[in-house]
């Protein structure tokens, strides 16, 4: 099964259980249904599925209005950058409603443009940027385990959050890692426990970390593999404890932002433990990052392993 089919299956199961929910967004029940994200959605009779106009600012306000009216809703969005048009509501309206401990749920589920072929829009690929505007809870979904836990726990729970999916991964085979640990707030996931390095992935870079872990295994090395799926303040404790043990830290972040939460981890690690070796893999923004391109992180796995050792 590919990534987007699995995410779609999880969403379909959750929404059909709801007595009353409004699902809305452009093209969510027509055409490709956002490339499969919203395909075959079904809801109970008291609920609605709305193929909406192209009015992102208003659609954000509608979601908050539904929330004030006690009705759960999900706004599915074709591209994260469209959400820039709704920033007013993400800050001003959300800051009003969050004071009241809302009982209803509102989730925005955008597709993050993390493949470079969309051109100029691709520069905005860091979910954390938009979440940091008003300390919004936000989650990236990268594999079978985090998708299950985040969508099942967060999609329709009271309150507001943004759950981003990766366009780059849509057609990729679903990665099914094991799970060692998941923080209760679904911010930090640990997939393996190893002795030779601590690998921490940010935003949507989990597949790169997963591949690095596999390559290390081929060389008889083991690593602890983490993914940080949220940008809001993170409890680094478990990761720091692991770095204390391994002494080697690899950070992978595919964001193009100047505002990387992985820097906070690096500071914490340097402050709290002896990091004997560390490798930072981030986007090289020195070249042409405005023209359409494949936009993958260029990672020389063998060089990273050599550097660590």
């Amino acid at each position, binding site marked *: 099964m590919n990534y987007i089919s699995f995410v779609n299956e999880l969403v379909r199961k959750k929404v059909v259980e709801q007595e*009353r929910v*409004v699902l809305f967004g452009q093209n969510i029940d027509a055409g490709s249904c956002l490339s499969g994200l919203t395909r075959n959605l079904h809801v109970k009779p*008291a*609920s*609605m599925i*709305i193929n*909406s*106009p192209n*009015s992102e*600012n*208003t*659609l*954000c*306000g*509608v*979601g*908050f*209005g*539904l*929330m*004030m*009216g*006690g*009705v759960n*809703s999900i706004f599915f969005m074709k591209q994260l950058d469209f959400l820039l048009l709704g920033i*007013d*509501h993400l800050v*001003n*309206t959300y800051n*009003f*409603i969050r*004071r009241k401990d809302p009982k209803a749920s509102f989730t925005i589920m955008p597709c993050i443009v993390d493949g470079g072929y969309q051109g100029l829009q691709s520069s905005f690929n860091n979910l954390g940027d938009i979440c940091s505007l008003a300390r919004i809870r936000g989650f990236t979904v990268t594999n079978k385990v985090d998708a299950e836990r985040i969508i099942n726990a967060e999609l329709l729970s009271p309150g507001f959050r943004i759950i981003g999916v990766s366009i780059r991964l849509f057609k990729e085979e679903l990665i099914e890692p094991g799970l060692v640990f998941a923080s209760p707030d679904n911010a930090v996931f640990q997939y393996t426990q190893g002795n030779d390095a601590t690998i921490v992935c940010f935003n949507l870079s989990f597949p790169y970390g997963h591949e690095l872990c596999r390559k290390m295994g081929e060389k008889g090395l083991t690593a602890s593999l983490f993914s940080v799926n949220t940008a809001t303040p993170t409890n680094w404790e478990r990761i720091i404890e692991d770095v204390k043990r391994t002494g080697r830290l690899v950070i992978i972040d595919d964001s193009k932002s100047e505002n990387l939460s992985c820097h906070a981890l690096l500071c914490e690690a340097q402050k709290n433990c002896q990091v004997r070796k560390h490798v930072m893999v981030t986007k090289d923004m020195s070249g042409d990052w405005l023209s359409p391109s494949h936009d993958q992180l260029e990672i020389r796995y063998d060089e990273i392993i050599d550097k660590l050792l």
Partner: protein
Amino acid sequence: MAGKTDLARQVLFLRHSQMLINERYKRGDFKIPLHLGLGHEAIAVAVDAVMQGGDQIICSHRNMHYVLARGKNLKAELDEYYLKREGLAKGELGSMNLADEAHGIPYSSSILGNNISVGAGLALAKRVAGKNNVIIVQSGDGAIEEGSFYESLLFLKSQNLCCMVLVENNGYSLGTHITERRCDINLRSITSGLGIHYERFSGNDVFAYVQRLRELRDYCIKTRTPVCVEVMLTTLGSWYLTNDQNPHGKFVNYHSGPAPTVQMNEWPILLMNDDDPVFALTTHINKDTLVRESKDILARLQEESA
């Protein structure tokens, strides 16, 4: 149904309440910005009179007159402006976002055009819950310049939601008159282009406003459609600034801040024409009766807010 005297008392209550707030504002009591609605009383009283249980109004930053009309409690509103725990929102909201959910104001927005889409969401929630209610959104001539105004009307009509959008047109955005900042906007044409019924109110006749708003509310519910009402009004209390740069006086529409030339008066009339909702009352009710009611209201408010 409220009688004529009741409605007149409400208009006078709003006027005196705002003038009392203005007195404190003039002496520098408040740390937060306030937006007086002197001259906006007739529409606020009419809206309050037609709202039924379950109806809600979503306000803008200039919400003082609606909050007073719905809650009828000057002390609680004053305490909120003083950011006291005894305030209407426990001192947590101040003025521009002041809401009073218990009296049908779940949200007010300090951002122009922001509240219409939230109102659309509330109207959709009423639909999903099977409730026959109207959501009223208070907006203004500044907000109709925002893209979100058009977007929200589009959504309201696309979903045929029971919503009444009130555009209080006082001609000003901050200190800039419409003629100084933009071309004319024909709201009738814009709403007509979307298939939304449009009406224009003018004259500050609270009794006529109540009657027509009641009919429009019924129309919204029966035909499941939004309507747009443009209310022509004047924010009273503007003044002429005279200084070295403006020796002959410069007209100041004060937007927020106190109205320095407005003074407390037992008969709180500010203009001798229909731009003043208090003057407009005299067409229907004997002035002596109004003055008597006015003194009584002022005395009570002064005692309550002391």
